[in-house]
């Protein structure tokens, strides 16, 4: 049997009267791209928030690499190797691109208060560590072709670029599990193509397991190994892209009857 990677069991959470997630269960294998689809308000982002520790589920459990994480704090979960991006961009708007991505190195660095204040020259611990990790970040900048915006405060950059910087920051954490919440939202066709290419590379070359939320069905069907469809917080179906596309409820609830042509084109 393969070692356990991510297992979500009977997860439920509600806000006031809204049952955002009800009895969601699935498990991910190391190395796969696993997508979650569902209409707006289905509970996809809520699922991410539970996994990354921002929300504490009412019931159920989440196990990541044999550790129960449902009660852990977000920073503890990050240290276990989980990184994410946000549907609504959450960058450090006054920092430049390099500094934003450097924050992704936080858990791998050691400089604390005293060694930080004591960066009095190139040979101090803090300076050496800065240099080392900036080199690593530069590799990510090269990978995602962000050289042009390296030293620009991110608040001033276009939306698509900001999405990329969020991805870069998440990669800097060197995660085992990467959660991508609608990484292509608001991007044009060309930007989307690049993003698909990068996500594939992240899976293949970096060996990162990816949990993906995406509305673009073609994109999802192209790159996912497995797909989970949810609606109104409940699991609708789980399977390979082909299987999920055949599901009646998915067609009805998510894609809508009027989009039939679109589906056959995809399939």
């Amino acid at each position, binding site marked *: 049997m393969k070692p356990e990677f991510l297992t979500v069991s009977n997860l439920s959470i509600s806000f006031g009267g809204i049952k955002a997630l009800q009895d969601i269960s699935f498990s991910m294998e190391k190395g796969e791209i696993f997508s979650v689809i569902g209409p707006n308000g289905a509970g996809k982002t809520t699922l991410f928030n539970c996994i*990354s*520790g*921002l929300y504490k589920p009412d019931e159920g459990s989440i196990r990541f690499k044999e550790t129960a994480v449902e009660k852990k*704090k*977000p*920073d503890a*979960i*990050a*240290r276990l190797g989980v*990184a*994410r991006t*946000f549907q609504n961009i*959450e*960058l*450090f*708007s*006054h*920092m430049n691109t*390099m*500094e934003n991505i*450097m*924050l*992704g190195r*936080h*858990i791998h*660095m*050691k*400089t*604390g*208060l005293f*060694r*930080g*204040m*004591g*960066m*009095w020259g*190139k040979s101090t611990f*803090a*300076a050496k*560590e*800065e*240099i080392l990790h*900036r*080199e690593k970040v*530069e590799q990510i900048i090269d990978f995602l072709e962000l*050289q042009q915006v390296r030293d620009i405060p991110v608040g001033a950059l276009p939306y698509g670029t900001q999405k990329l910087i969020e991805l870069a*920051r*998440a990669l800097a*954490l060197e995660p085992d599990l990467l959660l991508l919440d609608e990484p292509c939202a608001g991007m044009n066709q060309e930007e989307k193509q690049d993003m698909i290419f990068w996500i594939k590379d992240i899976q293949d070359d970096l060996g990162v397991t990816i949990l993906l939320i995406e509305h673009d069905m073609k994109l999802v069907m192209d790159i996912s190994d497995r797909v989970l469809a949810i609606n109104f917080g409940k699991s609708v179906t789980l399977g390979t892209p082909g299987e999920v596309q055949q599901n009646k409820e998915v067609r009805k609830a998510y894609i809508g009857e009027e989009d039939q042509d679109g589906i056959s084109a995809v399939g």
Partner: protein
Amino acid sequence: MDMKRTYYEDVQLVTSPVVLFWLALLFVFLVVFPFVVGNYYVYVANYIAINIIVAAGLNLLVGYTGQISLGHAGFFAIGAYGTVILMAKAGLPFLLALPCSALVAAGFGFLLGLPALRLEGPYLSIATLGFGLTITQIIGRIELFGGREGLHAPDIVIGSWIINTDRQFYFLLVFITIVLLTGMRNLIRTRVGRAFIAIRDADIAAQTMGVNIVFYKTLAFAVSAFYAGIGGGLYAFVLKFIEPEIFTLMMSIMFLAMVVVGGQGSLMGPVVGAGLLCWLDLKLRNILDIPFLGDWLEALSRSWFSITGVSNIQYIVFGSIMVAIMLFEPLGLYGVWLRTKRYWRTWPF
């Protein structure tokens, strides 16, 4: 971009010969200054240096971490009383008493930071305000601290160097200020400082990137209180005598004003803010001595504000200047600097 770029460029202090030149010039100025001006201006410089230290520390909390404190006079008082008592009653040398009492202030900062985790904005302001007021009340009631009578500061002795003039104290202050400001700058450029800024800009993202915000928010309080404690410890020797009434709410507010007027979240902001506000504060006390303007203000004050009290006019002018700065440049004086720099960079096009 050259291929052999060294990443130390990004974080080093002296980035170009131009910067080196200005730093050298500043250094020469600081050394020559106390010999060319009168004793009063040396005293003013000392007063400003102390406020720069406190403002820089408060800026870490307000400008970089996005929290607030209306209680920094409390940490300032702890530093002042701590240093004097450790020297006078426990016989500790100044160089030990000062950091020790600042550490005590940092400890209180940490404790205040804990409830601060659950509070934001106006609630945090009130909690810190309560702290500042309580500290002076407690100090005023304890016999060891001299109660309402206050305490005299002993002479500072460092090795065989006895500091008993403003000029001698000036050099000690300049040294401490430079060390603390450079330390602050280094902190901001490295891992911990980035975590502070990240919490301010997007605390959720910071957490999911592995930043423990409980730890860093309380750490920011502690470091900020440490700077205030150092400032207070030094201030005791400017005044030579301390009593609880010195450490008022007004003082806390002035510290905050220095940060905001100077430009929060920038390294030079609190330096400029502290310099300007201290200078204004001292100068405006004598505003009525200025020819014409003084007479006019006195007439204005007598006819509009109060018959006896011309004293309030200084605060009215002071307040107006602050309002004007905030209206025209919400980023504070640092914003003015940024715009000037941009202007000259593109000049004359």
